[in-house]
């Protein structure tokens, strides 16, 4: 088992203050990075094999290399709008070790020569935002953020922006619109944010966990970091495990660890020895896997080969006592509420999927509805500006594909129940229609 990188000293009291952070070797990698050539720094980040931890898994160094050179104003934006259901790793990082994030962000800012930077945190994380605000103020006071930091000639600004409760603002272009003070509607891509992002300037957008990993990369060197984990999935990953497990929480593991080890070894498995019905490997937006897939290695490529995605690294475990219809209902309700409404397939697709699952619960659905529902999911995938619609379509599609018999049984049971109730009401009303008596 590898040592912890992101979670190093995480429970140290006061680690969120600059003094304790520096006593544990904080802000020692930033001056090292500032002495490097920008090209070399980006090569180092690419060489580490660090992939974006927000959900898409795009190589971080490659993304940084897309930022054009030149005199225009460039920006680094940290995406701390952690809203993917089941994910809570960034929250713990911000709350307990905000300076690690600031250090990583400043290194990234130097690498792409961005002098104005933002951290966009979701509005619900009020306590965490206050902690981060205090940490930024401390760093500013010590001259770590400001003019000519560490005598490198590099001047940098960092501001915290709070969201106000919208899942879609975690999508990078939706986030940029929100930062510009608009409704958080995703933009048409291309142009990608690397060319035309915040205030039309080149913008590097990275997740909290990605940026927090950067100080460790500078410390270990690209090869040292790449040696952790497996091929094409380098480094350690925070895995948020929740749902029907004994010990929910964030666990830092080397990528490639077996999923069984994560769910049973670390999180203790379902309570009372129940069996696992299904699990989401990367937040609620990823297709579900079943108990048969537990031996899959937890890394980007293995999970993809199993038919799902690593996503944000949030495992939600569902035990055998739970109803898949209820699960689909919660999913559809969430995504139809959060759809921004810009693209029709997503806006209408999520809404009608929700109404169809509602019908199953009410007992008015027919088995044919499942085929219609599955067809609606296919109509959503790939037909919108962003992947919010896909994020509902993929898990619901996989639930229908893998648990069709349960859906059918529930449709039947609910319909019978409804008819029984109607018959009872009819009898109780003592209605007499000519020729028919109740």
């Amino acid at each position: 088992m590898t040592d912890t990188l992101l979670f190093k000293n995480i429970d140290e009291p006061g680690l969120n203050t600059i003094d304790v952070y520096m006593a544990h070797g904080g802000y020692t990698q930033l001056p090292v990075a500032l002495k490097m050539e920008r090209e070399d720094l980006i090569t180092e980040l690419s060489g580490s094999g660090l992939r974006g931890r927000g959900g898409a898994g795009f190589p971080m160094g490659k993304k940084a290399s897309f930022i054009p050179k030149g005199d225009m104003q460039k920006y680094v934006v940290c995406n701390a709008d952690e809203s993917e259901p089941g994910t809570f790793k960034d929250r713990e990082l911000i709350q307990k070790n905000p300076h690690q994030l600031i250090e990583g962000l400043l290194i990234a800012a130097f690498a792409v020569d961005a002098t104005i930077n933002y951290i966009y945190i979701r509005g619900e994380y009020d306590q965490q935002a206050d902690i981060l605000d205090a940490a930024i103020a401390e760093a500013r006071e010590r001259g770590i953020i400001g003019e000519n930091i560490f005598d490198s000639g590099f001047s940098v600004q960092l501001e915290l922006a709070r969201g106000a409760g919208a899942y879609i603002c975690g999508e990078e272009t939706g986030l940029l619109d929100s930062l510009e003070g608009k409704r958080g509607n995703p933009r048409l891509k291309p142009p990608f944010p690397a060319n035309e992002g915040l205030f039309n300037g080149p913008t590097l957008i990275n997740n909290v966990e990605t940026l927090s990993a950067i100080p460790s990369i500078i410390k270990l060197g690209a090869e040292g970091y790449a040696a952790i984990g497996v091929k094409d999935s380098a480094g350690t990953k925070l895995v948020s495990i929740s749902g029907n497990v004994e010990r929910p929480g964030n666990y830092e593991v080397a990528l490639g660890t077996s999923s069984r080890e994560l769910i049973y070894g670390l999180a203790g498995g379902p309570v009372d020895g129940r069996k696992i019905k299904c699990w989401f490997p990367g937040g609620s937006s990823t297709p579900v896997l079943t108990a048969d897939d537990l031996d899959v290695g937890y890394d980007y490529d293995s999970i993809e080969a199993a038919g799902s995605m690593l996503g944000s690294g949030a495992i939600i475990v569902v035990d055998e006592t739970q109803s898949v219809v209820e699960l689909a209902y919660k999913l559809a309700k969430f995504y139809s509420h959060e759809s921004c409404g810009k693209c029709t397939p997503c806006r209408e697709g999520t809404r009608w999927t929700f109404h169809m699952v509602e019908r199953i619960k009410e007992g008015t659905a027919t088995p044919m509805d499942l085929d219609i529902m599955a067809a609606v999911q296919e109509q959503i995938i790939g037909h919108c500006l962003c992947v919010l619609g896909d994020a509902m379509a993929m898990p619901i599609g996989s639930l229908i594909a893998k648990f069709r018999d349960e859906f059918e049984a529930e449709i039947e049971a609910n319909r019978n129940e409804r008819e029984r109730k109607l018959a009872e009401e009819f009898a109780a009303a003592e209605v007499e229609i000519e020729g028919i008596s109740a």
Partner: protein
Amino acid sequence: MAEVRRFTHDSRIPGWDRAADLDKEPAVVPDAATTEVPPELRAAIEDGMRRFPVGDSAFIPALYAVQEHYGWCPPEGIEQAAAVLGRTPAALSAVATFYDMFEMEQLGRKSVYVCTNISCSLCGADELLAALEGELGEDPDVNVRGFECLGACDIAPMASVNGVYVGPIGLGEVPELARQIRQGDDPLPERQLLRRPSADPKVAEK
């Protein structure tokens, strides 16, 4: 004014079914010289404007300031913010209606968000929400509502009481929690997220 039903199903935007008053002049940018803005509200909005190179970016901080001042986003508050920002009130309310945390109708000032998303509902969030609504639903000072994933699935089922994350909350603790919310006390101090150590055994080893 007549109520117009435009759709057979409802929308989550408050006031969506209210007809527009066609006799009213379209709203323009309020005159900054004649619109009276409470000084602390003006200061808060201007502080937001200083953080961005473009003034419009301060819309969300400005709406937070309005909500902080009035307890919700009333039309006069939006008008005042619009005067400071130099934009129309419509531009601001268009943004305000998009985000879940801005209240467009007057509700209780104490907000209790109960997470009802997947992980929490697997652990009994619907029952928790029903219990809290039963205890506090009648209280005009309290705004209890189910909310989307609050990013605290490790303490499921949980609630955010005025921004303070508390969980896991057992149904037996609901009366105690409700009392604390009503009296403005610290909600279930020993259950607050900020006091929770990391779950990772490798962290505890050291």
